[in-house]
């Protein structure tokens, strides 16, 4: 009889104690968080500090039945290291930055050519940050200029518009789609060098363009791949999901545009007399999208010719990409990694000087197989009189 109330009291006390820590350390109301959508990282003018710029959405209070309007807010802060810089935001922001939904990380060319390592390390180490944001290098520009300069046209927030642009890579195939996680993996893996997309400020009604690939050697930018080379790079790494190929069809003096439906790349490497030969098998399915002159494509022979011309075109893309990478001396394709996986004994002999010595000597012998599937809604083109 006497013992019973004791248990009840203890339970009550436990329950009340449980209620008190509402607001325990991970608990934060959404209004107290500032959701970071985009981050720009620059070296400060003096060069010894990091300049961090974040893009935050600012919500107008919801009134009536209208959901609140969103407006972008850009804030910058400098500090000796990334974490310090982030903490410095608390002096002026009034909210705690929330990093779970970062869409893009823009890095200036300056910062990227020094060392991107502190950034990657911080993103990989901190529990709130993720490795999912896309990594973009601002070529010939400061990263914060990009973030500030973009007035979102299709999205309110600049970061989300850049994210949308990168996600639409499958339409063009002319830039990289590596996020921080891919970058981190490639940084650690043997025989492959990381890459990032490139963002450039553009004139006219466009505030920016995402175009080309920034090739890294270890944690520094080593060179750039332009549009055609970028496409070739994507082809070599099996990252083409669509896009267009312009084909000069010389026999008929016509220019055709092919639309890529599917593409797959299977790497294969042969080592003949110390000569490394990269032999990717590339299968591409294309549709005819456009032609500037009326040519007959119904005959077996003309199609065969057209196929050959397209394959030649693709070969140019691949060769352009590889030779540029060999100039940069950075194996971003991962030929070394392929050797490491399939021939670890041989890899040991070349590992030390792979990028500088052996990779530039790799020969390319692609096996390209194009099949032309459809010709749109027209079978025989309209003859001009």
């Amino acid at each position, binding site marked *: 009889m006497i013992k019973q109330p004791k248990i009840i009291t203890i339970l009550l006390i436990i329950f009340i104690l449980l209620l008190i820590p*509402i607001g325990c350390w991970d608990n934060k109301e959404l209004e107290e968080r500032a*959701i970071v959508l985009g981050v720009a990282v620059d070296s400060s003018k003096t060069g010894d500090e990091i300049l961090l710029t974040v893009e935050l959405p600012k919500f*107008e209070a919801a009134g009536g039945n209208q959901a609140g309007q969103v407006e972008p807010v850009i804030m910058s802060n400098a500090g000796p290291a990334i974490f310090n810089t982030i903490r410095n935001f608390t002096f002026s922001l009034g909210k705690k930055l*929330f990093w779970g939904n970062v869409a893009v990380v823009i890095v200036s060319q300056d910062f990227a050519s020094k060392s991107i390592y502190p950034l990657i390390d911080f993103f990989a180490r901190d529990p709130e940050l993720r490795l999912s944001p896309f990594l973009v290098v601002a070529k010939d520009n400061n990263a914060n200029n990009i973030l500030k300069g973009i007035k979102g046209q299709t999205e309110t927030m600049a970061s989300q518009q850049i994210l949308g642009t990168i996600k639409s890579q499958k339409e063009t195939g002319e830039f990289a789609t590596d996020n921080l996680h891919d970058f981190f993996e490639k940084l650690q893996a043997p025989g492959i060098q990381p890459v990032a997309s490139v963002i450039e400020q553009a004139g006219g009604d466009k505030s920016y363009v995402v175009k080309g690939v920034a090739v890294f050697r270890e944690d520094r930018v080593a060179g750039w791949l332009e549009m055609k080379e970028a496409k070739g790079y994507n082809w070599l790494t099996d990252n083409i999901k669509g896009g267009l190929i312009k084909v000069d069809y010389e026999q008929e003096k016509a220019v055709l545009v092919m639309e890529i439906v599917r593409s797959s790349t299977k790497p294969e490497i042969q080592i003949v007399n110390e000569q490394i030969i990269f032999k990717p098998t590339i299968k591409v399915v294309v549709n005819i999208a456009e032609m500037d002159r009326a040519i007959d494509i119904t005959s077996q022979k003309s199609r065969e010719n057209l196929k050959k011309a397209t394959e030649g075109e693709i070969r140019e893309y691949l060769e352009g990409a590889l030779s540029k990478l060999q100039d940069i001396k950075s194996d971003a394709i991962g030929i070394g990694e392929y050797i490491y996986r399939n021939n670890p004994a041989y890899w040991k002999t070349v590992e030390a000087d792979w990028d500088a010595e052996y990779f530039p000597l790799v020969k390319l012998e692609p096996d390209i197989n194009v099949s032309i599937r459809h010709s749109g809604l027209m079978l025989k083109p309209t003859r001009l009189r």
Partner: protein
Amino acid sequence: MKKLMKQLKKAAYKKMFSSQQETTKKEITLEVSLAQNRHLIKNALGNSSDIIIRNLTVNGVQCSLVYIADLADENKVQEYIVEPLIKNFNDKEHISLNWLSNKVASPKVRFEERLDEILQSINAGQTVLLLEGETAALILETLDEQYRSVTMPPTELVVRGPHEGFIESINKNVGMVRKRLKTPNFRVIDKQLGLYTNTSINICYIDGIAKDEVVEEVKKRLDQIELDGVLESGYIEEFIEDAPFSPFPTIGITQKPDVVAAKLLEGRVAIFCDGTPAIMTVPFLFIENFQTADDYYNRPYFSSIFRLIRLISIFISFMLPSLYVAIVNYHPDFLPTDFLMTIASASQGVPFPKVIEVLFMGLIFEILREAGLRIPTPIGQTVSIVGALVLGEAAVGAGLVGQPVIIVTALVAISSFAVNFSLTATLILMRLVFLMGGAVLGLFGVNVVFLALIIHLASIRSFGVNFLSPLAPMAVSSWKDTFLRLPWWLMGTRPTRLSENPVRQKKIKQPKQVIADD
């Protein structure tokens, strides 16, 4: 805790029954004199004004009819007893109780000597016929059987199944079930409960399908009840359920005779109580909360889809508010950016924490529900106008509550109506516990509460059957009627653990219709 309750109960009973038990010790029987007997009965009933004593002279012998006005049907008294006695007037016959019993037209006739039995019969609407010179009385059935008509029960609406529902008469109710089970194996055990109410309780089961142990257990538990009055089956339910402290009911309640018949066929036992349309069935399993009568009458696709929807809705009803609070406050990175921004912009400027918002809106909904139940019908519209328009719209408009919370509350409200009505209070309680877990510890807290809930459900039993069966302990053979409802021709066996006789149909044949080509 339990010990304390038991002791309190015992003490209360002793006080209640001590005076009663002493008087019933010595039995009083009738005397020879009619006047004396009349006096005896009148005294025992305290000269109540509604006691009617009608004196007759049959063949020169005095006799008296005793009954209670309104409880006994006066027409029946006239038709069954008075008319035959007067019409069969014959000088030569010797008038005795035996002779009278052959003359009266009442469907039930019985002799009785003991006074307390006689008094009980009078109170049950029967008429007592006393005869000068006899120490026994004739007890004749004249109960006024006027009840409301058989209608569809408001809590168990069906689209296709029978629209019949139980009424307040136990005889009629048992009859409705027996009408559906035309088998000699249908058994009814009669009991009286309640010292002052003497309520009839009937235990029904099908011999050979129901487990004998369960029937015995029901009898045993009913025998233990000492109560002054039983007005509704709820009075007994609380005495015989296995887990009185659990928020989950372990006894099934239904108001539909077809449901009771189906449950008896699965080996369950039904307990009828006089004066209530709510019939109890035991053992009651957790999954029965998701099974409705319509499931078995419609095609299996229909039944299975809606059963799954009911399962989803119980999860929504339990966990949605807690998940909302936990994810938004602790793990906003779970949400896609656009979704997060929508919620963030909707909760901008709302002065309260999310938990308070959710609790507040939940409370308002429960008040609305209760008010809607109690409000007189002519002004019922007020609730919906005040509730929906003023509270919902105005709260959002004034920026007191974010729109997502309104959506959460509305979803929870709708989902809570998709499951068994008797779970309503359980849902509210569990929702609160989940919400506390989610608000204090985030998703971890929600998980802890969920695990605790599963452990609790797995630990309770209903009349010897695990409450969670056939999920835990797992009996895949019974899953034919758990998440899905398979076609009848695939359900050859009864649910395991319920029945003595697991085979439902001996031959299972997939129906094949062959139409000869002409």
